């Protein structure tokens, strides 16, 4: 039996069922089209010349030889783009280096030629005259009084919030509640440390790419690997000075994102090339370029101090972070602000102060990455909770239970918490992990808990009933493989009481889709799901009005029945969606379309309880919760840590599709495992020393334990669609903290630096001096 004749997979399907994603079929058959798989008539291939310098002025270009090279049609440099600058929070970035280069690997010129090989060869013939400048390679160096300045015109840039930018300081945020300085006197136990975390690469399996084409009127169509067609549109238009109406942004299948494809990569360059070449141009990054010129997770320096009473009650925490921004602001101000909002963890800490600085350096931009600043502060915070517990003789569950946020509490600086399943998450982990291993040996157990938001910014949905009563759903949300199209179709189908397979999801298209900020911030299920549910509800209302007329009764007497029928209560008579839609299309009222737009608009900051300066997200979202327990082994010879067993529980409000939630928890755990144990981007001076999968290693199937147990906890959020909250990031946040706590238990050594390599753990076990072995 071939797959095409297989049993229908999409039978029925409503909220709470693990419907298989429809896109799985074309993916297993090798027929899914990603950006690199698109070809257009007359299409050229692009390649990029990257900067060899960390910081240099560009004094000129000599393109003579490159233009003469075989197959070359067009070349663009900074001279081809205007003064436009793009950026989510601070508009500081040109489409391509203009006037200066700010990091090794930054695009300086791009070539369009008949083949990729010809384009790459031609790049080598471009001569750029540089005047080298001293480089800033760490945030500390960037804050020195005589530091070289990356952005001389920083004060003139457009900023969307009170960033406090100055010199190389990109932004700063300060939040506080209570009186931290006075509170230390009330503490019986105080722990204090400095923690560092490393840069991590996203390593989406699909490298970034784009394809642009200009039509006869000069309007651009742009396909690209992205997490938001709308952010692509905005960034390209801002950086190239195009009216937004002149650019249509689309997306093929996307080979994952994890934050890497949310803000721009090479879309503006590809558009500029296509405009100059007057031919379609496709530009696909190599893996090495994807490492060097897109973005990565921020390295953090976290100074944290936490105090508690003798009974374990937390009294105060002070958290100060210094964050490497890289060359451009990108999402960094948001990451800084968010990590500070989250640095207290899901605990009641009456006196809490968080401050941070984000500093420009001559490295690639750091930006959004699953967790968005939360894993870095959590690595510090969750270790300090354990340290306090250890000092007071309270086990990891107990110290957390005594302090966790309760129903009705507000989060740090003020946001409302809709529902809180943290206690149930901890119960699930504790119950499953209790006792020794199957062979009777004791566990090396570590625990970490977390909260994460889902929400933020604008979203919309359009639900259209087609003539035959089936449904077209259009949200503009990019499905990056995680299954948001499936989840949104489930929400839509549920609201309309239709089988899942009667809802089709339109591909995001800035021409035809309602605005969607993006597939990011664990937000699509919650935010877009709300819009979908409301829009579908409006279609039901319209259908009810038709049905009332068709059945000659009051709307109040009608009920929506399974399978697309509306009937009179207590009677068998009903009308089908097909009959209703036909009537609407051809006779009365017009086609049935329900639409809804919304923006998450509950304020983050409650001025009555907290002081907040430089808060980049004034309206943030609702809270999901999670707990992770790990039981680890440490190799005596090498110090390497492996996970023996893990228990990951997450409160996602309501699992619209439990299997997809489960895969998020597994995938997040394994990506977090790489982050906790060995993934690290290493710089040799200004050069990234390991921009390849040979040298930068991510976990393989053999590095992952079989025994990862997931627990989906459902504590419905009153505002979420069917109670749902986000699940995309929360499974990663807890991994470094839980493993660090387990390592501390197994070796009696606390580690303040990530990743927890065999080398570090062995040093912790034996002391740093090998001659003492």
């Amino acid at each position, binding site marked *: *039996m*071939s*797959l*095409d004749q*297989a049993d229908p*997979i999409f039978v029925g399907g409503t909220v709470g069922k693990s419907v*298989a994603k429809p*896109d*799985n079929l*074309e*993916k*297993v*058959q*090798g027929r899914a*089209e*990603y950006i*690199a*798989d698109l*070809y257009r008539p007359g299409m050229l291939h692009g390649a990029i010349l990257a900067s060899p310098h960390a910081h240099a002025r560009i004094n000129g270009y000599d393109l003579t030889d490159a233009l003469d090279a*075989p197959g070359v049609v067009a070349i663009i440099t900074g001279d081809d783009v205007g003064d436009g600058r793009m950026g989510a929070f601070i508009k500081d970035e040109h489409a391509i280096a203009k006037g200066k280069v700010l990091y090794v690997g930054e695009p300086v010129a791009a070539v369009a030629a*008949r*083949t990729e*090989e*010809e384009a790459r060869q031609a790049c080598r013939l471009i001569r750029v005259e540089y005047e080298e400048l001293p480089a800033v390679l760490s945030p500390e160096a960037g804050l020195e009084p005589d530091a070289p300045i990356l952005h001389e015109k920083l004060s003139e840039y457009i900023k969307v919030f009170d960033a406090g930018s100055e010199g190389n300081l990109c932004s700063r945020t300060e939040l506080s509640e209570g009186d931290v300085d006075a509170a230390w006197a009330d503490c019986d136990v105080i722990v204090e440390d400095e923690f560092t975390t490393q840069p991590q690469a*996203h*390593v*989406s*399996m*699909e*490298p970034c790419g784009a394809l642009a084409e200009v039509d006869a009127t000069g309007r651009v169509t742009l396909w690209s690997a992205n997490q938001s067609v709308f952010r692509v549109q905005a960034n390209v238009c801002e950086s190239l000075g195009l009216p937004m109406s002149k650019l249509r942004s689309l997306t093929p*299948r*996307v*080979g*994952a994102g*994890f934050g890497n494809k949310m803000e721009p990569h090479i879309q503006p360059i590809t558009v500029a090339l296509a405009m100059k070449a007057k031919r379609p141009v496709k530009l*696909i990054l*190599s*893996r090495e370029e994807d490492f060097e010129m897109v973005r990565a997770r921020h390295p953090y320096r976290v100074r944290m101090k936490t105090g508690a009473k003798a009974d374990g009650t937390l009294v105060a925490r002070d958290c100060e972070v210094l964050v490497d921004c890289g060359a451009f602001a990108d999402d960094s101000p948001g990451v800084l602000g968010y990590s500070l909002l989250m640095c207290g963890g899901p605990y009641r800490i009456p006196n809490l102060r968080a401050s941070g600085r984000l500093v420009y350096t001559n490295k690639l931009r750091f930006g959004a990455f699953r967790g968005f600043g939360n894993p870095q502060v959590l690595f510090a915070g969750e270790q300090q909770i354990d340290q306090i517990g250890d000092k007071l003789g309270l086990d990891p569950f107990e110290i957390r239970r005594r302090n966790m946020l309760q129903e009705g509490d507000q989060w740090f600086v003020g946001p409302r918490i809709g529902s809180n399943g943290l206690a149930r998450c901890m119960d699930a982990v504790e119950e499953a992990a209790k006792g020794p291993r199957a062979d009777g040996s004791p566990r090396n157990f570590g625990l970490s808990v977390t909260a994460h938001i889902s929400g933020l910014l604008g979203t919309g949905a359009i639900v259209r009933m087609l003539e035959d009563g089936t449904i077209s759903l259009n949200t503009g949300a990019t499905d*990056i*493989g*995680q*299954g948001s199209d499936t989840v949104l179709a489930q929400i839509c189908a549920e609201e309309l009481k239709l089988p899942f397979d009667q809802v089709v999801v339109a591909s995001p298209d800035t021409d035809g889709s309602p605005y969607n900020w993006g597939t990011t911030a664990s937000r699509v299920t919650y935010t877009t799901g709300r819009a979908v549910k409301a829009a579908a509800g409006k279609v039901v209302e319209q259908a009810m009005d038709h049905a009332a007329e068709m059945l000659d009764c009051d709307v109040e007497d009608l009920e929506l029945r399974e399978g697309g029928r509306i009937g009179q209560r207590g009677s068998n008579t009903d009308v089908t969606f097909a009959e209703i839609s036909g009537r609407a299309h051809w006779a009365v009222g017009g086609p049935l379309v329900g639409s809804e737009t919304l923006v998450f608009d509950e304020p983050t900051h409650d001025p009555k309880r907290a002081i907040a300066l430089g808060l980049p997200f004034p309206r943030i979202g609702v809270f999901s919760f999670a707990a992770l327990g790990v039981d680890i082994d440490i190799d005596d010879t090498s110090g390497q840590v492996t996970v023996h067993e893990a228990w990951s529980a997450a409160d996602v409000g309501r699992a619209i599709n439990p*299997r*997809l939630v*489960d*895969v998020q928890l*597994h*995938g*997040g*755990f*394994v*990506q977090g495992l790489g982050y906790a144990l060995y993934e690290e981007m290493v710089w040799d001076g200004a050069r990234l020393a390991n921009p*390849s*999968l*040979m040298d930068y290693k991510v976990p*393989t*199937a*053999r590095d*992952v334990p*079989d025994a990862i147990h997931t627990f989906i906890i459902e504590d419905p959020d009153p505002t979420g669609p069917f109670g749902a909250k986000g699940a995309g990031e929360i499974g990663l946040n807890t991994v470094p903290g839980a493993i660090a706590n387990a390592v501390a238990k197994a070796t009696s050594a606390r580690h303040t630096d990530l990743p927890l390599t065999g080398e570090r753990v062995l040093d912790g076990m034996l002391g740093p001096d090998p001659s003492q072995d």
Partner: protein
Amino acid sequence: MMAKKVLHSLTLNGEQVDVATPSGATLLETLREDLRVLSSKRGCNQGVCGACTLLVDGKPVRACLTLTARCEGHEIQTVDGMGEDHVMATLQRHMVESGGVQCGFCTGGVLISARELLAEDPMPSREAVKTALSGNVCRCTGYRTIVDAVVGAAEELAQ
């Protein structure tokens, strides 16, 4: 001047295919740029990620490390051309149903590696599945659902 092309005669998914491809081209380049067979993906071009994995004479190899010139006289199979293969179809169905597919970029390579494993070892342990798939990097799933799919397909095929 276009790069010099060389004519090769290949056997692709059971069919004879003549293709002109740049001399020294890898099979990945030839398949994608000259034949528009797109199921092998370029994830790293270094042989590490596994997204380009395909079968040559029934053995999984990296298309990005294989020269087209060396493939004459050998049987090449790609995932898009294997729908009629009962074992592959069963694996595909289990991948669809178990949630082993997320972004899908690694999926074709994963299926090729799994197909060869089941040819060698029809009832593999989970450990054996992980070993067979250790050269196919997946950044989305955490591997659990993929291993479930391969084990599930093997169990079904054994019945």
